[in-house]
């Protein structure tokens, strides 16, 4: 890597500044009805061993048959990562013994993966962005799950997950801080969710990361890396990197050396600990799976999938900026989830894009966050929010009233226009009514009227009084204009 070193990203050690270098292997569960090589279902949360076929349990004489939908999903993902799609790839066996691995080998892709080099554009706060290289994406089987808490003397195995399709997405070591790493995973997750190829649900283990961390003095060659296995939240990814980088820096500044090894992150203790050293590493004895022919498809298959791809977040963001005049930041917030972007577009269609963005981001997202809800659970539909925006733009209600209206629609529902009618929330634009209120206030406060001539900022007090007297429904612009005229303020 020849990217210039950004001093802001360096970690201060006791003696020197250090650069952390991070590469990631993301395991993303493929969204598909059945497993990679068997017809068993992939549904989450079933009774243990409810979704196990003869193939998944590795019964004698059973053979794997590739699930075409998983292949299509991997190709779609490759296209979403702007990656080279390999029309011929090979499934290999990775051999090791473990009770949750019934075959005694995992079917994976080793030398010839289905997807080759690609890239992901990652936006960082403060408008910066980096391009992270993707080395490869391959398909492989997930393992089952060992259950150690069912009996004091034995462990049990749940094979529901055994054989479920995973995409392993390997990045280049292009990340230089925990923040970049978090942003990369977030962006990758967004792309996968847009594509519909992985739901990205980290709580269910459907997206997990192995994080390779090394440190070096700026400008020096790459240091020895340690791999932190199976980190299952974006927050933990950040913490694990920070913790591991500091551990390595401490060793190096102490004159020690880093041993290449596999480590586990313990979020409770805030430390990484050794799982196995390079010497203890398995010899997986990879070789091409003789039960499966090489996976081959033609360019037309790829082209067909490419034609069916949805608009991806980068393109959508650019379009929101150019078509709706949004700031890149706001556009980025809106496109982070496909459902949010769709919602926004429904609100913005035929309306003021910026105003729509303000309402979606500030009011709707703010309220959803407060309640811990996702966009899918919003009680205010895009049509309802659009109607609220319309009422503001028409001048039927003020921005302040609009917030009250939003609250009513949020908790009680209803057509915003009808609610405004029924509850008399309409803004008073009838100058006669406003003038009467203004006259009454001026008559009742001669001292303030006198002061206002000297101190024009008192206008605000009069506006407040007028709004109070009209129940907030007076058109603020009309109130302002009338007061200025009557108080003689320029």
């Amino acid at each position, binding site marked *: 890597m020849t990217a210039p070193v950004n001093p802001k990203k360096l970690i201060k050690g006791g003696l020197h500044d250090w650069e952390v270098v991070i590469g990631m292997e993301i395991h993303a569960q493929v969204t598909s009805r059945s497993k990679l090589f068997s017809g068993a279902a992939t549904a989450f949360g079933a009774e243990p061993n409810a979704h196990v076929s003869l193939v998944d349990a590795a019964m004698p004489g059973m053979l794997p048959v590739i699930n075409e939908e998983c292949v299509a999903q991997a190709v779609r993902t490759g296209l979403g990562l702007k990656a080279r799609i390999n029309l011929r790839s090979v499934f290999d066996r990775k051999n090791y013994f473990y009770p949750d691995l019934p075959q005694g080998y995992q079917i994976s892709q080793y030398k010839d993966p289905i997807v080759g080099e690609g890239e992901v554009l990652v936006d960082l706060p403060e408008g910066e962005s980096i391009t992270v290289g993707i080395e490869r994406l391959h398909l492989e089987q997930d393992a089952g799950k060992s259950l150690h808490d069912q009996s004091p003397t034995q*462990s049990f195995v749940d094979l529901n997950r055994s054989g479920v399709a995973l995409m392993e997405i390997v990045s280049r070591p292009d990340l230089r801080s925990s923040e970049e790493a978090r942003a990369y995973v977030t962006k990758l997750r967004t792309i996968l969710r847009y594509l519909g190829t992985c739901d990205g649900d980290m709580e269910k283990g459907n997206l997990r990361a192995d994080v390779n961390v090394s440190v070096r003095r700026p400008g020096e060659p790459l240091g020895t890396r340690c791999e932190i296995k199976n980190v299952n939240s974006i927050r933990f990814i950040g913490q694990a990197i920070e913790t591991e980088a500091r551990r390595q820096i401490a060793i190096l500044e102490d004159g020690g050396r880093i041993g290449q090894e596999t480590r586990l992150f313990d979020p409770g203790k805030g430390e990484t600990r050794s799982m196995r050293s390079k010497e203890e590493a398995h010899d997986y004895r990879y070789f091409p799976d003789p039960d499966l022919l090489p996976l081959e498809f033609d360019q037309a298959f790829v082209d067909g999938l490419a034609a069916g791809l949805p608009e991806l977040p980068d393109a959508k963001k650019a379009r929101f900026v150019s078509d709706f005049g949004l700031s890149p930041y706001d556009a980025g917030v809106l496109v982070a989830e496909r459902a949010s972007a769709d919602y926004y577009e429904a609100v913005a269609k035929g309306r003021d894009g910026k105003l729509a963005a303000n309402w979606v981001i500030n009011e709707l997202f703010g309220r959803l966050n407060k309640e811990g809800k996702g966009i899918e659970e919003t009680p205010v539909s895009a049509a309802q929010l659009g109607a609220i925006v319309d009422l503001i733009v028409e001048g039927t209600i003020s921005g302040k009233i609009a917030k009250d209206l939003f609250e009513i629609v949020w908790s009680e529902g209803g057509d915003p226009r009808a609610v405004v009618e029924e509850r008399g929330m309409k803004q008073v634009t009838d100058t006669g009514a406003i003038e009467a209120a203004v006259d009454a206030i001026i008559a009742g406060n001669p001292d303030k009227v006198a002061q206002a001539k000297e101190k024009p900022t008192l206008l605000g007090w009069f506006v407040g009084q007028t709004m109070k007297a009209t129940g907030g429904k007076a058109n603020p612009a009309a109130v302002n204009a009338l007061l200025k005229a009557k108080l003689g303020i320029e």
Partner: protein
Amino acid sequence: MSALNELTLAEARDGLKARSFSARELTQAHVDAIAEARALNAYLVETPERALAMADASDARLAAGEGGPLEGLPLGIKDLFCTEGVATTAASRILEGFTPHYESRVSENLWRDGAVMLGKLNLDEFAMGSSNETSAYGDVISPWRRNGSDAAIVPGGSSGGSAAAVAARLCLGATATDTGGSIRQPAAFTGTVGIKPTYGRCSRWGIVAFASSLDQAGPIARTVRDSAILLGSMAGHDPRDTTSVDIAVPDFEAAVSRGVKGLTIGIPREYRVEGMPAEIQALWDRGAEWLKAAGATIREISLPHTKLALPAYYIVAPAEASSNLARYDGVRYGLRVPGKDIVSMYENTRAAGFGREVKRRIMIGTYVLSAGYYDAYYVRAQKIRTLIKRDFETAYAEGVDAILTPATPSAAFGIGEKASADPVEMYLNDVFTVTVNMAGLPGIAMPAGLDAQGLPLGLQLIGRPFDEETLFAAGQVIEEAAGVLARPKVWWA
């Protein structure tokens, strides 16, 4: 009328159609013969009740003028084929107590066509062996004996139970499998006919795997015609095995009487191995003469990489086996020998569950796939495999229709004669047959004569991919020319 179990499969089929006897009578004759022949140890499991029930069902269909191509014909099944509700062991302790809930595709095809199951046949453990002496459930004894000798002879392997049962009239035909010669070598040793079809012709689904890229199912029977009839039912594309090929199954029986007029038969000079007994050479020459007399052209050909086949085979097959047999870990089915932790449970189970030959091959396979050795062994073996395949392609491209070779370098040997020797000596039994597996081609072995001691000798014909028909046609010519051979005298009943 001679005993019903003396009939060939084709004769029995025709007799059933003509209602000369019932399927029950035919089955009962076999059940009785099996009960009298336990000294051969050919059957691991006998299923007489099931056989008779299937026979009755066949009789009902035959009476109604219905029935499939194998209706009412009793067969034995090599115990490498999973059979629903009937114990399946692969002749290994490690599968002790295992009863599948599913039926292998090949045996399912046989039952679909009306065949009757007599039981499960002994074999070398996990089909690893050439003498049926590696079975965890005892050696299979050949029904053959040397002239004037009582010494027990091996039936060959790994399909030793299948070959012995067919030769001893304990079934009309049997399923078998062939990874390096396991159908053809025992057929040659027992004076029976065995065909290993083209890789991909039969589904491997439900057959306990030895070496996936080499394993192929096929029949052993008493005549070329019988083997053609059986293969016709066993073969067929199966979407559950992606290496099975979606190609129509021809009428193999019709090909039997096609003759060899106008065919070119290749005689590969590299198969004239050092130390080949004169009897084998004479048999080979005689076979070529027979084919020539029937109208074929005989041409000497070269398959230059032949001598590399055996060493390459003994890298590829163990490599795949070491991985295929990893699933026998004591966790889910079969034998489990407890241990203090999971690793010791694995070790105890596999130490007790696998026999010496299986362990040897797992060790070899693990070694050749290990980091640092993979390129030197596995990768080179695969390259050799490509060269072997190319040798055959060249011969066929030059107009050769089939290739004639001896089936084995010698007649059957005595029980124990080679079992304690250097394992490589045993491996040399496959020298003429492994090339065929390495190239994925079809190969048939049929009896062609007896040696000086009265033991059968076989010839092998190797065909083009998916051209089993030519093998049946040429095999029939050899079978007819060889005439009626002596058969084993019944000493076991």
